[in-house]
């Protein structure tokens, strides 16, 4: 099964994926083994548990070139670290509220706690995310200009 086709006119958005190595990463792996095709604009950082992902890391990623961030963990009730993923879900939801506040939007933070080992689900969820996400507008466009001035170099 292939992920949804992308409109090749727009470049694919850059997404940083934090995937827990017990479920989500296995799903990513399975998608690869099945030779599912996805756009090459995402990078995966494996973590021990989704609860290990600091919300600050998500913010840092958005400030370092990512258009979107995905945090993927095990099913609720299926975390091998005694429901540590419950806290992750709640904190990421709250982070979504902050992203909504400043207009970046919670839709740039994909939360998936249900793919388990399913490669096709991983591909579908991430594929849809990559397709629907637009680039993150430059928040301080004049900053680069300023920093490129001879006085700053």
């Amino acid at each position, binding site marked *: 099964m292939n992920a949804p086709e992308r409109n090749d006119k727009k470049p694919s958005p850059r997404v940083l994926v934090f995937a827990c190595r017990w479920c989500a990463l296995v799903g990513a*792996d399975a998608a*690869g083994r099945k*030779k599912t095709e996805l756009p090459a604009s995402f990078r995966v950082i494996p973590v021990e548990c989704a609860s290990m992902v600091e919300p600050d890391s998500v913010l840092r990623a958005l400030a370092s070139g990512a258009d979107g961030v995905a945090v993927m963990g095990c099913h609720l009730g*299926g975390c091998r670290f*005694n429901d540590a993923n419950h*806290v992750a879900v709640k904190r990421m939801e709250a982070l979504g509220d902050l992203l909504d506040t400043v207009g970046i939007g919670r839709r740039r933070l994909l939360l998936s706690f249900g793919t388990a080992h399913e490669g096709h689900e991983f591909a579908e969820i991430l594929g849809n995310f990559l397709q629907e996400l637009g680039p993150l507008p430059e928040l301080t466009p004049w900053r680069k200009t300023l920093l490129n001035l001879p006085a700053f170099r």
Partner: protein
Amino acid sequence: MPGVMVFLCRCCGRIPPTVDLSALGEKIDREEGVVAVETRDTICLPEDRAAMLRSFEAGGADRILVAACSPYGKADDVVAKLSAACGGDRSRVRLVDIREGCAWIHRRDPVGATAKAGDLIGMNLGFLRHGKCSADAVVAVRPECMVVGAGSAGMAAALSIARAGHRVHLVERGAGMGGMLKLLSHVYPTDAGAEEKLKPSLQAISAQPLITLHAKTRVAAATGYAGDFKIRLASGTEETNLHVGAVILATGAGVWLPRGLYRYGELKGVLTLMELERRRKEGEETPRRSVFIQCVGARCPERPYCATFCCPSSIKNAALIKKEDPGAEVTILHRDIMTPGAILERYYRSALEAGVRFIRFAADAPPVVSGEGKVDSVAVFDTISGVKREIAADQVILSTPLVANADNTKLAELFHIGIDRYGFFREDYPLHPLETRQAGVFICGSARWPVASGDAAAQGEGAAMKALAILGRERLSARSLSRLPEGKLGHARIEDAFCSGCGNCVAVCPYEACALQKVGGIFVSRVNKMRCRACGSCTSVCPNGTIQMPEHNARAVGAMIRRAFSLREAR
């Protein structure tokens, strides 16, 4: 700082041509901190690995990056063997998946895939620069064990551990051993007398010098961790201190009394299954006409579970009554008959053949018990024939479920383990049914979930085996306490000078591994390495990065984030 040796694997042509390894290799070689780049065909094969080790030792690097296949395949084994060359420090070897995670999933975009592979390798080079290793903790293991509860599960556990040569303290709050078996007259499916069934265990325990029974005793206090638990027992005013390596909780369950249902307590002749057992054990005469009602107080909103033992138990009593008095009228009113397995299925059928009547009722139309002063009859709507029946009865036996022991909450607090919403001890989900979230504390029998004595004994033996894995060692390392082949990732580390004592890590840790201690007048958090399972929850709630997982610390992750997207165009 010596630098990184990078190995790229062609995977016999399964990674290129999608990912252009030669172009990649050149680019990586120019990176600061990279000592050399070597491309190989099959890093999973011993010949290539030997060559890699030779290159590494000659090259003068102190870390290794391998870009190859998935971490779920052979690559993990490769990393383990390579880390041996780095003094066993797994934080010096890093595996990057550029096959399943890159070449295979972006076959239609070789340019993008190669760029991604470059980024992935760059990310992990950054990670390697900052990866650290947790210092392990090693504790001496106390060889003795404590088993709480001397029922079927507890006795089986105690015997298994004693047979392996360890002293067991068997703590029982009642006057003697035996648990629920003492209350029964017969057991299923053998129909053997309960006392007979109990005797061998009682004899074996009495004959076993390594088992010390503490009767009429409760656990009053407990501290410590796997390998080293300090327990205080209380028996009346007397106190005993124990120092054990593992704890098994086999405290069983209690029977639920159906007050207010089916006129229990109002009419003579309406009794519970347990009371029937008692009467039969004491040789009381059984009346002619018996009606059993199943699922009383079970499979309902307050207790939406099946207690598993009540159908076989009722069938057992019904069949025995019929055997003793073939003219007796015995009916079992049920919602479903739960007799899994070939033996119990045969048990059910032989009861049918012996003349026990089975009538099915629906949950929303329960039977109605009538009588004045004593029970007279039971009216039920038979869902299978669609007919309302009136059954004359001299006694009505209510099958009620087992409910959690009231002591479980206190024990769960003492040992920092969880209980589920019905009060039973929580297992360490997934795949570790006899373990809890605290290493060294095990659960078995009905304390964990309602079971019959045979299964309880089997679980007791299982818990004993798990406990012996700890007790049998002289020393226990914190790292080995995860059940992963390579041990757990490490354990959290606190930078004392940074800690503000806010307590976030204490609140969030699923294993209660963090605790606040007063150091010089201020609170500082401390990690119990034996309890920490390296999930990393604490690191994501610490406001200033005081607590870190050395193997996955913030600097290493930060390096990965920054290098994820080599910004070629200005944004």
